């Protein structure tokens, strides 16, 4: 710290007036002199070069009363405020705040979910092995999936993570508490943690593993939705991984870096009309302990490792509400906001997540809903035994996700970059920036996929709810309801409308991204034009599959 000591000497020597303070009170020494005296050194009256340069020219131009000079832009950005409205839900509905502040809140919402989840395990083990006659398959892959995509993500961000049963045991191992909080000290965190305390490996601090995990699950989607035991295996594996990760690594390493569902939610939560943010940025600046991140006697350290004081997007906030409890200033709230407020992807892995998700929405539509029997045969390797066909099918999907779509994207952004030649931006910036357009488009593609899934298979849900194990029960009198597809004729029209809304959002939000990247409106327009064309082509491809 020798440099710093030198700087201190500079500070002492920066006293230009030699102690000519004329203010009231007894002292006649200047502050710098007194500082020097306190250090047992003598101020020499020299100015530091920088101090000599400073003065009026370097001062802030407005000679008014001091205003807070702290970063005002950051809170605005953190508030998701690009000139948009927000409604503070804790202010509007105080009861909501009281509920979220309850220590038992998360336990009370997770517990029923945990019980239902393990009931599904029993159903998978002992129930009907046919997918469309099995409660687990019907509830998880049809009803839950539909509710998740159509309602929870667009309106509730990552609210599913609030109630997710997967990390239940992992959290318990780390906290040794189900409800209470343990104050203490674990590294920088102000809680007593057990279980894993190692940091997640540096090279894996990204979402590539989530990307690969979701892709791998998608390759076996036909198997997962038809064989309860396959789904059971995957879920058991996820519970085991979440638990083992919690025993080795600190906080929610599984959720942050491996869970494929978390990856899906992290991407599309950007569009959500709900956000958790700080209320006043200055309060966060002045906060000494950063309790939202490090925890306090009232709340656990953020399991996701997120600092709400500078949080500017939904991606990695699991809405566990611990920060709401731990914040000593009551400065964190839930806000309602317009759809698609977070518009910035930051890394390549996030861009590829957008590619993978969009392609998979198409793959699912073709494989699970499309009229192409031969594709279903290729995907259903356990039924057909056609391993080579399945490998080819898998290879095509992997290439489409990881190579083909990114190449089309690269072509579009390169063309845009050339058209906006007056303002040169890096390809990386444009590539990642415009990949955001695939977020609203992808979400609406998934919604378009999910609607017929429920409308066509909804009657099966009534059957299995009444007879969950397929043992001939009829709990609600609906076990014998015949298979009744709802509105099959108008499904393509519904899907067309949904896709058009997705395209509209993709274009509008993409243009917002362009305007945030380019200084000139003209450059933004030119740059974004080829991406608009490519978005239209992608939407057309979806429409061909949906309506064809």
């Amino acid at each position, binding site marked *: 710290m020798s*440099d710093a000591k030198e700087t201190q000497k500079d500070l002492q020597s920066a006293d230009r007036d030699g102690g000519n303070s004329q203010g009231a009170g*007894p002292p006649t020494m200047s502050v710098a002199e*007194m500082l020097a005296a306190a250090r047992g050194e003598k101020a020499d009256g020299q100015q530091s070069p920088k101090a000599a340069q400073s003065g009026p020219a370097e001062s*802030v131009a407005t*000679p008014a009363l001091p205003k807070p000079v702290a970063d005002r832009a950051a809170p605005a950005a953190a508030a998701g405020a690009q000139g948009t409205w927000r409604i503070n839900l804790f202010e509007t509905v105080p009861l909501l705040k009281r509920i979220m502040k309850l220590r038992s809140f998360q336990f009370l919402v997770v517990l029923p979910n945990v019980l239902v989840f393990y009931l599904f395990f029993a159903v998978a083990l002992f129930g009907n092995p046919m997918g469309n006659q099995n409660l687990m398959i019907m509830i998880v892959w049809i009803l839950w999936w539909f509710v998740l995509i159509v309602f929870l993500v667009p309106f509730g961000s990552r609210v599913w993570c609030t109630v997710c049963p997967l990390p239940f045991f992992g959290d318990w191992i780390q906290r040794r508490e189900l409800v209470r909080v343990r104050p203490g000290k674990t590294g920088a965190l102000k809680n007593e943690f057990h279980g894993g305390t190692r940091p997640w490996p540096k090279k894996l601090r990204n979402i590539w593993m989530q990307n690969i995990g979701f892709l791998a699950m998608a390759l076996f989607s036909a198997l997962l939705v038809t064989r309860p035991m396959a789904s059971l295996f995957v879920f058991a594996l996820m519970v085991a991984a979440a638990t083992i990760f919690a025993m080795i690594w600190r906080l929610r390493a599984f959720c942050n870096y491996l869970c494929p569902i978390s990856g899906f939610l992290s991407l599309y939560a950007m569009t959500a009309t709900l956000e958790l943010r700080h209320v006043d940025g200055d309060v966060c600046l002045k906060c000494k302990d950063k309790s939202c991140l490090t925890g306090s006697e009232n709340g656990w350290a953020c399991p996701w490792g*997120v600092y709400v*004081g*500078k949080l500017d997007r939904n991606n990695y906030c699991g809405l566990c509400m611990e920060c709401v409890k731990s914040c000593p200033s009551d400065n964190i709230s839930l806000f309602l906001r317009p759809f698609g407020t977070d518009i910035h992807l930051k890394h390549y892995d996030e861009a590829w997540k957008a590619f993978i998700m969009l392609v998979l929405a198409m793959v699912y539509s073709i494989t699970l809903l499309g009229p192409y029997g031969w594709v279903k045969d290729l995907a259903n390797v356990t039924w057909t035994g056609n391993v080579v066909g399945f490998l080819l099918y898998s290879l095509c999907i992997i290439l489409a996700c990881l190579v083909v779509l990114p190449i089309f994207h690269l072509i579009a952004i390169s063309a845009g970059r050339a058209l906006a030649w007056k303002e040169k931006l890096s390809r990386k910036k444009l590539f990642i920036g415009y990949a955001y357009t695939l977020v609203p488009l992808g979400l609406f593609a998934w919604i378009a996929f999910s609607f017929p899934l429920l409308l066509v298979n909804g009657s099966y849900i009534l059957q299995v709810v009444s007879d969950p194990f397929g043992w001939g029960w009829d709990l609600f009198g609906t076990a014998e309801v015949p298979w009744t597809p709802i509105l099959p004729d108008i499904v393509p029209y519904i899907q067309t409308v949904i896709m058009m809304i997705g395209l509209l959002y993709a274009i509008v939000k993409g243009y917002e991204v362009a305007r945030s990247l380019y200084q000139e409106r003209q450059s933004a327009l030119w740059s974004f034009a080829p991406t608009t064309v490519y978005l239209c082509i992608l939407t057309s491809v979806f429409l061909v599959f949906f309506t064809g």
Partner: protein
Amino acid sequence: MPQQSFSELTAEEVLLLAIDVERSNGIRLRTFSELFVDYAPDAAKLFAEMADEEDEHGRLLEATYKRRFGEAQRTVTEDDVQEVIEAHDLDDGEHLVFDDMNLRRALQIILKAEHQAEAFYRQATRAASDPELEELFRQLAEFEDGHVQWIETRLETLRESA
């Protein structure tokens, strides 16, 4: 205590506030150091060094206060004033999710707060009507300027070595 505007403070209160600002920044920077010690050791080391530096400056200001006003009978904290004078803060909510903290970024984070503090005191100097306050603000600005210079030098060295 209801929040006051900085411009309403007396010289004594300004000094008490400056002491609290230094102490608070020491706590913040030490927290950052602990947070990043496993992820970015060089950034963590810098945060720790700066925390020591802020603590040291807090002690110097305390000594100054004692000479000038005697034993402190009260405190004026950051929370007592409306403005933010100097508050070191992370620049991204996702630093710990992704491994994107490094020495350069840590230096930039510190530099930003020091710049803000310096600008604040300089602006206050220009707005002050009381000569004693004006002198105090000027000297506090130069106090912060020392940090700015030190950080800028380290950033420059880092740039050159890169």
